[in-house]
């Protein structure tokens, strides 16, 4: 019997078996509705050495399916980077130093919503929100406190900041300067991905056009002044959290990435000048193999887009480097300790998918911000994966798995279809303005909710295996007086700072925004004069206007 005959015979036998003992479901699907077969086997066309080189290649070589570095975690583990920040700059500074002492290798800053939307802590819109989901930063003073006693040449810092990314980057650079650290010695990332804010995350300020200008100004400034800074982290994470499928996560993220590249090219930058500093941020969700395949498919697609569409020559421009965070929306408020297990499985998927850095969520995040103990368990989860499981001892250990490779291909195929469609709509910005991505995501989110309510999707502890009278864990509380304390500090700052340079800096920023100057140097000047984030953003609001979401 040849292979096909043996396989057919086996299938026939199994079909008879199933007549007697049916499988758990009639059909199995991934989160993206990709059918999952009973068994995957070698496929003769695909297993030739030529097909291997074309689709997979070697680690560190085009199309980077198996990883962007030749040795991956045999060289060094992924960066363990826990997102943290709450309350005042003093409190967050303490948490940062605690995490560094515990062996964390990079910082990741969470800002509160007023900071993320460019309001000072004493703005009426900030009421109730100061210090709640991250640290409150209104001026350079707060930023100095946040990084006190943390040498900025020795850590890399990621900042989840988008609409006012230039302002926070400027503050960080001035703090580095004051510490005596040259800008070419600082490294880190700003999220700076405004498109997904319109789609999924909601902390936008300005309309798309001036927002894209702020972003390309950063690309251009950093390529000369801050060469080791990742100028953007193009994020599928929030798209997935908003309810998208894995396919949509890849497709919409890459569509947004293409829009940034085009904006930068249109602003006169050269592809290999800025593309090596583009980075990505993905979600690690529940469907284990689909997630691993997702990372691999995204890498291969990006390599082709950069080489074939944008004619990048520098291999760094073609390498999709990414941060991963485990899926916050998969965590349950019920039986919160179960979340540790969910996070472990998701983190393992990220590692098997070849992530460059990883945040593991804390067990209590469906209830509140993590306590110190929960944050430590989350970090320990990564450390156990790294140091005890030995999953990092070989590169892309699942490469060549019949299932993983077929899933990788299928995810790529389906995501490419979305990309083509978005292209026909005039690209990501146009698709977002028409509410297309938003509607697709919402539709997927609603299907998920219905499947959970109908019990078709099992959520352990929520729709099955529930317990009555759960005990509630200790939760972190943020001091609600912080808003008032910050307001006092701001009043003092406004009185004590030198008025003339402050007024001049804001006037210069205004005329720069009205013209077409690169805004980064002007924002740096404003930050040095102790202009607050609210003052800087309001100056830009006056010139640029504010974004109003489409009604769809």
């Amino acid at each position, binding site marked *: 019997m040849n292979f096909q005959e043996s396989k057919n015979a086996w299938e026939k036998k199994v079909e008879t078996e199933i007549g007697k003992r049916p499988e758990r479901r009639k059909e199995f699907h991934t989160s993206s509705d990709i059918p999952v077969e009973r068994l995957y086997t070698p496929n003769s066309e695909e297993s030739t050495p030529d097909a291997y080189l074309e689709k997979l290649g070697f680690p560190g070589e085009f199309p980077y399916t198996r990883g962007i570095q030749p040795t991956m975690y045999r060289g060094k583990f992924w960066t363990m980077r826990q997102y943290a920040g709450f309350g005042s700059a003093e409190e967050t500074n303490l948490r940062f130093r605690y995490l560094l002492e515990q062996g964390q290798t990079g910082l990741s800053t969470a800002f509160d*919503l*007023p900071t*993320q*939307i460019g*309001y000072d802590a004493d703005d009426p*819109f*900030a*009421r*109730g*929100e100061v210090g*709640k*989901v991250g640290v409150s930063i209104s001026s350079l003073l707060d930023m100095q406190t946040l990084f006190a006693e943390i040498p900025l040449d020795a850590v890399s810092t990621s900042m989840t900041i988008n609409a006012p990314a230039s302002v926070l980057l400027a503050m960080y650079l001035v703090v580095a300067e004051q510490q005596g650290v040259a800008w070419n010695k600082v490294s880190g990332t700003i999220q700076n991905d405004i498109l997904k*804010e319109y789609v999924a*995350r*909601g*902390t936008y300020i300005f309309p798309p056009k001036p927002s894209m200008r702020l972003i390309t100004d950063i690309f251009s400034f950093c390529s000369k002044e801050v060469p080791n800074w990742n100028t953007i982290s193009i994020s599928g994470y929030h798209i997935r*959290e*908003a*309810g998208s499928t894995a396919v949509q996560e890849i497709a919409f993220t890459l569509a947004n990435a293409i829009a940034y590249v085009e904006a930068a090219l249109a602003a006169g930058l050269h592809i290999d000048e800025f593309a090596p500093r583009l980075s990505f941020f993905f979600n690690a969700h529940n469907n284990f193999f689909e997630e691993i395949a997702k990372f691999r498919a995204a890498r291969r697609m990006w390599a082709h887009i950069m080489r074939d569409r944008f004619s990048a020559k520098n291999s760094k421009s073609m390498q999709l480097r990414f941060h991963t965070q485990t899926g916050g*929306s998969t965590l*349950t*408020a*019920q039986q919160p300790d179960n979340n540790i297990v969910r996070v472990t499985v998701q983190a393992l998927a990220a590692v098997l998918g070849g992530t460059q850095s990883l945040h593991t969520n804390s067990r209590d*995040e*469906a*209830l*509140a*911000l993590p306590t110190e103990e929960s944050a430590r368990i989350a970090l320990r989860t990564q450390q156990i994966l790294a140091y005890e499981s030995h999953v990092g001892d070989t590169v892309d250990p699942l490469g060549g798995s019949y299932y993983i490779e077929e899933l990788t291909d299928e995810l790529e195929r389906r995501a490419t279809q979305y990309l083509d469609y978005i292209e026909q709509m005039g690209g990501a910005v146009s698709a977002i303005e028409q509410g297309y991505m938003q509607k697709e995501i*919402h539709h997927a*989110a*609603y299907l998920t*909710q219905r499947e959970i*309510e109908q019990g078709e999707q099992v*959520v352990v502890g*929520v729709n099955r295996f529930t317990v009555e009278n759960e005990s*509630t864990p200790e*939760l972190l509380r*943020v001091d*609600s007086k912080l808003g008032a304390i910050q307001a006092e500090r701001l009043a003092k700052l406004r009185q004590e700072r030198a008025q003339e340079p402050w007024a001049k800096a804001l006037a210069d920023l205004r005329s720069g925004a009205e013209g077409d100057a690169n805004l980064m140097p002007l924002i740096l000047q404003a930050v040095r004069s102790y202009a607050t984030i609210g003052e800087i953003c309001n100056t830009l609001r006056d010139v640029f206007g504010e974004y109003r*979401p489409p009604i769809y």
Partner: protein
Amino acid sequence: MDGLERPIRVLIAKPGLDGHDRGALVVAQGLRDEGMEVIYTGLRQTPEAIAAAAVQEDVACVGLSSLSGAHLELFPEVVQALRARGADDILVIGGGIIPDEDINALKNAGIAEIFTPGSSIKQMADYIRQHARTAQLPALASFVEGLDHIGIAVNSLTIAQKLYKDQLGAKEIHHEEVVEQGVRVSILRMGQTEIELLEPLHEESPVARFLAKRGSGVHHLAYRVKDIHAALQAAKTAGFRLIDDQPRRGAHGKWVAFLHPSSMQGVLTELCQPREDRQS
């Protein structure tokens, strides 16, 4: 009354700066699928703006969502803003990342219920139907004219009639067998009050089952309504559990329809209306 079939109107709102609207959007669509009319405010609404929209849109319920931890400040402000506008009959509920220990404080501040992660749309819809109906009630209330009669299930009409006639001085004004219901009915009047005595004709009769379970006693209260079709529709819209979807012929030349005791504090309730072709 503008239309009796008006569904319950709900405003889903995002107070504060939180941008997570997956939950708000999913709930909005879910409640629509449950037959409600849902308006979504979009992101970044002040409590004032939410209250103004709720009043302007004449909603019966406001659903607030926040995942940023600002609920203790912002949810009560919405309730206060509604009160300031004299709209304290609007039901306010909330959801999001809300620790258990905050729920009591929110309830004390006037938020009726909190739905935390894992709550189903069905739970929320049922809750809204049960608690937000005061805003819709004028529809049903405007049809109810008053008590029509008290229905009493008895094992023997003869014995019961003797009691009411001889001891209490009631007068029989009507006597009838309602074959569809399997009952023999005697209607007695005392002053303004009518009593309907019900005796089962056979064991399959609902009244026979009632007697087997509980013995003789008050079986139902009946309220006279103006337009029973419309009244029934209004009751349905307001979320009452109905026994009869359509009015049917009852004793003494009336249209009748029953509401389930679970919607009426444990009392089986009849809505009735004299038929126009009625012959006394």
